[in-house]
């Protein structure tokens, strides 16, 4: 399966196993822009899978209302992550705090909002952004970004069944590109847990989402050219994030690279770095490096400069290891 069929499959299972679940958003009845919801309406009918008008804020509001009444499962789609901002008030002020401000009388844990994010090569200002850091700054919501089809299916099912509202960001560049063996049965991948994709001893390389493909290549290059052994970690869930997994790794390797596509300033990488320096200060052998998007609006013609590509990561890995060696 590729990423869009894996998502489709997870949605199918969710609709099949949970009679309260509904799927809605712009054009989802026709399969959606990226085909993630194809055939769902045919299978489950227009009461459970339906189109909404072009109203992001009401898509979020609808999800919150539906989920907070008798614990229904609401799976909404924001057509692109860039369009989430019209719904931001609903997400930040309504969705995230409903449990807290009602003293746990009400909650909207049944909400999952799915949305495609990230660069695609030619998306320009409004079809390329990765808004995860805006969301992780907001206590009360869970933010998830899978790296490929197999993880995506399990993480999406966990998100849908989670007792907290989840924003599920799907790397759109991989919808068709990434193909993996995905089990057909119902399974979950635990939220809040990172996955060590490759064990290594020299440096920890941390990322999430589709960007891990780039990091895998950077790790390969470091191995081939410089014999550096990288430990590659996929964070998977950004809030709450798996601090233990990351700090264990950094305590072992003494070095860390964090890389993400979103702009560097106030990106989620900054959060990771702050925590790691507090937890692993005495194990660190060289300054932590962030390899991220530039602090610019997402540029159309300059995308290939903007992106923290494999060579930028390769260079950073080398720098971190060399600087540790020089100080020893």
């Amino acid at each position, binding site marked *: 399966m590729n990423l869009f069929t894996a998502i489709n499959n997870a949605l199918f299972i969710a609709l099949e196993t949970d009679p309260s679940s509904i799927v809605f958003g712009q054009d989802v009845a026709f399969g959606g822009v990226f085909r993630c919801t194809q055939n769902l309406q045919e299978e489950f009918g227009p009461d459970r899978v339906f189109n909404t008008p072009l109203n992001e804020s009401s898509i979020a509001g609808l999800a919150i209302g539906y989920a907070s009444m008798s614990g229904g499962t609401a799976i909404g789609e924001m057509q692109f992550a860039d369009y989430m901002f019209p719904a931001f008030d609903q997400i930040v002020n309504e969705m995230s705090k409903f449990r807290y401000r009602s003293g746990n009388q009400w909650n909207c844990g049944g909400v999952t909002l799915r949305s495609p994010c990230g660069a695609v090569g030619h998306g320009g200002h409004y079809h390329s952004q990765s808004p995860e850091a805006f969301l992780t700054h907001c206590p009360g919501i869970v933010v998830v970004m899978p790296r490929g089809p197999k993880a995506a299916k399990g993480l999406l099912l966990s998100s849908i069944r989670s007792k907290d509202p989840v924003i599920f960001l799907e790397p759109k560049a991989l919808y068709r590109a990434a193909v993996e063996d995905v089990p057909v049965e119902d399974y979950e991948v635990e939220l809040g847990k990172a996955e060590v994709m490759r064990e290594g001893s020299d440096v920890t390389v941390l990322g999430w989402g589709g960007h891990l493909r780039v990091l895998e290549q950077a790790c390969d290059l470091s191995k081939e050219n410089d014999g550096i052994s990288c430990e590659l970690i996929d964070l998977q869930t950004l809030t709450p994030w798996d601090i233990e997994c990351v700090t264990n790794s950094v305590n072992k390797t003494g070095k860390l690279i964090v890389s993400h596509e979103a702009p560097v300033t106030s990106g989620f990488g900054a959060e990771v770095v702050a925590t790691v320096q507090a937890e692993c200060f005495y194990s660190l052998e060289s300054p932590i490096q962030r390899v991220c998007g530039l602090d610019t609006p997402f540029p*159309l013609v300059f995308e290939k400069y903007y992106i923290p590509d494999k060579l930028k990561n390769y260079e950073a890995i080398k720098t971190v290891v060399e600087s540790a060696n020089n100080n020893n």
Partner: protein
Amino acid sequence: MSSTSHAFDISGSYELHNFETGPPETTEVTKEELVNIFETMYTMRRMEITCDNEYKARNIRGFCHLYDGQEAVACGIQAALAPEDSWVTSYRCHVLALMRGGSVSEVIGELFGKAGGVTKGKGGSMHMYNKEHNFFGGHGIVGAQVPVGTGLAFANKYKAKPGEPMNVAIACYGDGAANQGQIWESANMANLWDLPMIYCIENNHYGMGTSIDRHSSISDYYKMGNAIPGLRIDGMNVLSVIEGMKFAKEYVGAGNGPIYVEMMTYRYHGHSMSDPGTTYRNRDEIEFTRSNRDPVEHVKSCLQEADFMSAEEIKETEKRIRKEVQKEVMKAKEWATPEYKEVATDIYAKSLTPYDGTYPPFVRMPDFAKSFTFDV
């Protein structure tokens, strides 16, 4: 140029909401004006078709929304408004950029990502602007341009000389956009404060793949402002658009408050280049519109009806324009791509270049030989 003119019947082009009288039922147009309209609209048509071809040839990438079918709307608005009036629109903005000071080469150059494009190659299809011509441009987020337009109307009112007609503002948006919450908010403000604002809904009957009966509980968009008066215009007849927009401009410019205008129009192409545009509507519908309501064909028949141009002359003109558009495209292809340092300009008032420490001085390119160091 001769000053021959002709009176055209445009009765039946309008429907009114909260108005007692509407725009006139006939309009007097000179030969010069009509020829000009024809040339403009035919250039628009050719430009968009050329974009389509260049897209298919992979010279243009990414998101690209074409305007063919809707030409009479942009052309008519431009003819009725003054250059000082402010104009803001959605992502479907190529043709408006052309109306507001841009050339075909600058529009297509922008799509090619060239430094000579209307936005220095930094915006692409959905983002074209022209300060000198009061064009506040293309906006990628559906509906977001409308509160901005209301702000423009506010500024126009704020700056107006007492007792004189105000410059007006117009925001164009689609039938799909019309139910975005932020539009209702801004319409209330405009009405509360009598802003010289034209809410212009280009009703092409679809928001992406969804037809209006599936996405809107109201299909009479011109009535959508409730207390705000509205005017529905046959958006395929450029002469009706011009008279209708003159009426709208005069009404809002005189301090009566805002107006809702609904343009009944149609887009031939799919929503964007990735949409063939034939899965949610049938070919007959498109063909029917092409053969019965085409806005360019309509102007041609007006030219002939008034004896302003013969069929032969029309053909000649079309041939000339096709060549001109092609020449403009060739010109744009020659332009350079923007320099890398442009990635860091225009973010804050104070440019981040020359290099001030904010960006890594060394830029590693996918091809190492092309890597470079910033001039410090």
